[in-house]
């Protein structure tokens, strides 16, 4: 088997006496579309925080394309190609979408420390930023200040900012959280339209969406991996139904 894009070995974390990640072993093959599901409080977001370096694990290791990144800071992981989005919008409220994505592209190109040339003269950076916005259908509203953007567009901007770092692996924490059901499809269509080389792991509660977009599902319960496998296997698993699916209405 070739080197996974992202993997964890015996990853553990506890908040005091409460274990929130217990011996997590995950392998994301290159180009995978994995869904991470589980009841509230199962530790899904914690796992993303551990993988991206926003939390330090108590034990275990994280590998990005074979490289041990466990001791690297969040921005170093981003620079190596591991990006994330946030469940609760974590945007630059006072910047417009174009400025925000231009900033993210400039950071990736290592231009953001330059103070002697205007932003407006960095045409390649701006073009790249606008192209990302256009692909996510944010082109029309890119001059609007982020805090004034409709909520669904803010969710897309979350993804745009992550894409600007040109990730190899993208972790999406409930990308359509808070978006009305009739619009959440739009967010996931945008996700599905991303490049095939991009390895994706997304947290999602809506089982329609999960079964439609995921090639593989990981089920977490109380900080541990309960089971994982093909969508068909997961949906037929009586144990999964009991801990998770059984509590929800789904078709």
């Amino acid at each position, binding site marked *: 088997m070739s080197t996974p894009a992202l993997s964890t070995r015996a990853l553990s974390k506890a908040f005091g006496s409460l274990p929130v990640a217990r011996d997590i072993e995950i392998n994301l093959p290159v180009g995978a579309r994995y869904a991470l599901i589980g009841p509230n409080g199962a530790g899904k977001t914690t796992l993303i925080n551990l993988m*991206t370096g*926003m939390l330090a694990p108590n034990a275990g290791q994280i590998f990005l394309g074979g490289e041990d990144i466990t001791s690297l*800071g*969040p*921005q170093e992981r*981003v*620079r190596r190609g591991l*990006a*994330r989005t*946030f469940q609760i919008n*974590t*945007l*630059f*409220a*006072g*910047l417009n979408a*174009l*400025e*925000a994505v*231009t*900033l*993210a592209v*400039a*950071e*990736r190109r290592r*231009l*953001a*420390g*330059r*103070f*002697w*040339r*205007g*932003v*407006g*003269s*960095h*045409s390649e*950076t*701006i*073009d790249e*930023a*606008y192209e990302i916005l256009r692909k996510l259908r944010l082109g*029309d509203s*890119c*001059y*609007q200040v982020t805090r004034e953007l409709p909520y669904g567009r803010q969710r897309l901007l979350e993804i745009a*900012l*992550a894409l*600007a*770092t040109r990730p190899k692996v993208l972790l999406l924490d409930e990308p359509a959280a808070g978006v009305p059901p009739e619009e959440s499809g739009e967010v996931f269509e945008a996700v599905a339209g991303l490049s095939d080389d991009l390895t994706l792991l997304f947290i999602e509660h809506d089982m329609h969406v999960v079964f439609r977009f995921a090639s593989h599902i990981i089920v977490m319960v109380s900080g541990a991996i309960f089971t994982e496998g093909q969508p068909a296997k997961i949906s037929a698993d009586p144990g999964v139904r009991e801990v998770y699916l059984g509590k929800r209405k789904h078709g």
Partner: protein
Amino acid sequence: MTTATTTLTPQAYLQAQSRWHPLEIVFWLATLLPFVLFPDYLSLASQIAITALFALSLDLILGYAGIVSLGHAAFFGIGAYTAGLISKFGWGEPLTGLVLATAAAGLIGFAVSFIISRFRHFTLIMITLGLGLLAFEAANRAHWLTGGSDGLQGISIWPVLGLFKFDLYGYTAYTYSLITLFVVFLGARRLINSPFGLALRGIRENWVRMPAIGADSRSHIRKAFTIAAAIAGLAGAVLAQTTENVSLESISFQRSADVLVMLVLGGAGRLYGGLIGALIFMVARDQFSGIAPQYWYFWIGVLLVTVVMVLPNGILGGLSHIYARWRPK
């Protein structure tokens, strides 16, 4: 605003952000008026320009990056004492004096920035306050070097470029301060509109998101803080040279607090906020202290409370809000 700009390409839009507004040209032309209208107040005008430069330096870190400092006068003082001492020990050439004083303040600012970049909010306010007090007491204690509370005496500045002597009326002083302010302003304006300026605004707008887009916020803050410290030192040096005197007041907490008040009055995070704030503050001080020399701060207090309550983004923030409203759509 959006209706007018949606037709622009992204690049043209971003370029338009940094274009000179006619009001800016009016502003800078108006800075020449004191030569004609108030020739008796050129010394005050020079002090205003110096204070504006100091406020501009604080705006870079506070207004743009959201880094609060209550000890910014430390760098102003370091620049002032450096420029004063260089002259006292025999080298009175003003321009090299400015360069050395700026470098000294920038160097110390760089060292301090390693502490600054690790903290935020309340902790940072306390740290900068503490560092400012340390600098003040160091200058006070080093009486043999700084003159302590007697002030640094014996400064003698040679004519600028060997031609323009600092005169009693303040012609040279105001010209000198104004040119320094304008040159630094041009640099600051460029910085604000650069990718680095965008990164500073990113830090201010969302500290948590910055690492998630691969940004090293601490390195950005170190750089911005060093630049701000250097400019503050430059402002102090210009004051030392134009007044041929450095008092302990130049490194005091009062000066750190005053510059913060000016920035809040004028509008932080706007290039002209510090400039307008310094102008209002200094003119108000001049006028109020004429009325009641001991209680003039009372009126500054009234002004500050009123502005903060009525115009949370400062006077410039309020004006631009009105301007945006009344502008023909």
